[in-house]
């Protein structure tokens, strides 16, 4: 069972809206930084960066964060997840950091990402943008920008497919098994 809950156009429109919301909330792009969480968040952050840069006519710094080293289950996992490379080639001190991820679920990835960011410096604030919020939080984390609120069951899988990664742009909901 596979159901498409967002198609190409819907994803594009959501990202455009989020780009404007980020600029509205922060009153422009002054000291704004976008950081994508590996893997899905990186492509979304890069697309948001292109939109915001085009609107504001200036380059917005863009970084990549891998949270594997900060996961709360990594010490107890027998099969270790393969870490990716973090690339934040600028200071985040006193910057407004927008973290970008594809799906917000338990909130544990975002907790790990915030701990990682604090090790890189002292941002002025951290905001969170996600394409899909599927609920089921296990930590007190709330996104600032959401593409789609998607109430889901625990046994369902929500996958964001992006053309940079796999095939075409779509968000699908799949039942496990």
């Amino acid at each position, binding site marked *: 069972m596979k159901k498409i809950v967002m198609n190409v156009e819907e994803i594009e429109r959501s990202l455009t809206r989020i780009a404007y919301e980020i600029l509205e909330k922060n009153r422009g792009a002054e000291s704004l930084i976008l950081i994508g969480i590996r893997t899905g968040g990186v492509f979304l952050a890069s697309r948001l960066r292109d939109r915001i840069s085009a609107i504001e006519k200036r380059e917005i710094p863009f970084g990549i964060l*891998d949270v594997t080293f*900060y996961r709360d289950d990594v010490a107890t996992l027998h*099969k*270790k997840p*393969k870490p990716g490379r973090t*690339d934040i080639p600028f200071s985040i001190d006193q910057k407004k950091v927008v973290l970008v991820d594809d799906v917000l679920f338990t909130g544990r990835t975002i907790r790990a990402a915030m*701990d990682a960011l604090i*090790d890189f*410096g002292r941002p002025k604030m951290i905001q969170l943008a996600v394409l899909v919020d599927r609920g089921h939080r296990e930590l007190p984390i709330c996104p600032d920008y959401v593409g789609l609120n998607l109430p889901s069951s625990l046994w369902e899988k929500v996958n964001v497919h992006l053309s940079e990664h796999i095939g075409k742009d779509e968000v699908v909901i799949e039942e496990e098994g």
Partner: protein
Amino acid sequence: MKLRHKDILGMKELSPEEIHLILDTADSFSEVSTRDIKKVPTLRGKTVINLFYEASTRTRTSFEIAAKRLSADAVNISTSTSSVVKGETLIDTAKTLEAMNPDIVIIRHSASGAPHLIARLVRHSVINGGDGFHEHPTQSLLDMLTIRRKKGTLKGLNVAIIGDIAHSRVAHSNIYGLTKMGCRVTVCGPAPMIPRDIEKLGVAVSSDMEEAVRNRDIVMMLRIQFERHQASFPSIREYAKFYCLNRERLEMAKPDALVMHPGPINRGTEIAPDIADGVQSVILEQVTNGIAVRMALLYLLSGGSS
């Protein structure tokens, strides 16, 4: 994908897939050492013990820094100040340490096979930090990471390993590792330093340094293991005359050839000072990459429930 064994004992036991996994993981860890705050919480609460029965600066320090940058607790035991001087056997020392519940113990010993013996007797992971003339797998892995980062790949490269092959565990580990990864390896040195039948490991042998260096992508120099030569060494000057890597000999290699050395270097004996400090030398990058490789191994071995 995960490692098949609880221990890292030698390059002989690792598959090409495992080597790729270790190198890819090390690539990601190398970024941590470039940060202002060079520490991640990944191995919080894990205990790593360095049990070194032989002198070491870089390997022991590198493992200690790797453990600390992962937030593990690192303990160093140097045998001159331990119960070893009171007559305790290697096995008794290892079992005593096991009773303190470490997660990973790194063992360096002058007897070939010592880490293998201990690995069979204990529950925790063992990493071979160098055993006798046998193997030094973490050195080989950091050499491979250095080559891969500079050349993009290991496959198809021509490598010359020059010096005291017979007494060098670095040479043995690199012969196993590099041939497995698709390099063509030539070993070169004076006849008494070349083990008989070394060709059976899939390497070419040469006693002429110029022939060994010609058109190579990598020139890897080795220190003479004076401490492992039973009789006194005939003549350092004579050795240097035939086997020192100088400007003239390096020019026989490819123009972009890398010069490597596991250290410590003896300037003027196996490598000329201007070559050790020259643009083609990656000797200090090898040291930097050693920390990333050891972080990757500690990470991949640090158990957990299945």
